[in-house]
């Protein structure tokens, strides 16, 4: 039962990733793409957690930890570029 639900979760996360990817490819401005990029990183964290569950290895969570703490740096770097911060 739980297995089937987790598989369904993978499919839903993949669908969300696909929607965000569509926004990334469609644009229209760079800022829209940055939003889509941010969303995809967070979906990536979910992917990593689900993978850890599927494989049964808790050590995979460390990668999710790194993304959770560092993914906003990329967004801030782009945002500061857009507003001419450096």
């Amino acid at each position, binding site marked *: 039962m739980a297995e089937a639900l987790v598989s369904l979760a993978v499919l839903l*996360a993949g*669908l969300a990733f696909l929607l965000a990817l569509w926004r990334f490819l469609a644009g229209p401005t760079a800022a829209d793409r940055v939003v889509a990029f941010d*969303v995809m990183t967070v979906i990536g964290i979910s992917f990593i957690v689900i993978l850890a569950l599927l494989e049964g290895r808790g050590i995979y969570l460390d990668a999710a*930890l790194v993304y959770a703490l560092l993914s906003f740096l990329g967004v801030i770097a782009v*945002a500061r570029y857009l507003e001419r911060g450096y």
Partner: protein
Amino acid sequence: MAGLLDIVGGLLMVGGTAFLVFGGLGLVRMPDLFNRIHAGTKATTLGTLLTLAGAACLRPDWGWKLLLIAVFILSTNPLSAQVLARAAHRIGAAMSVKTRVDRLEEDQGA
């Protein structure tokens, strides 16, 4: 009783990823950048939190690390959204025609 916890965990994960889908849908359907940031930030934050909670139900021994991931997401996600929204406003990102009022623009123009 472990079976019940498993099912609750699975349901939480499905619910969380469903919110992720709503976020993605919002990203696609919303009319302008700021509304997209809304959909993206809120939906992914809660979606990921629910996914983490589901994982914690399925594997209670991972609880502390999942809690840390949740704390980090809660503190970084809104921050990046805010910085991006500020930058977008400063460069004059196009706003939807439905926009009724823009007090920040008025104050900066003054």
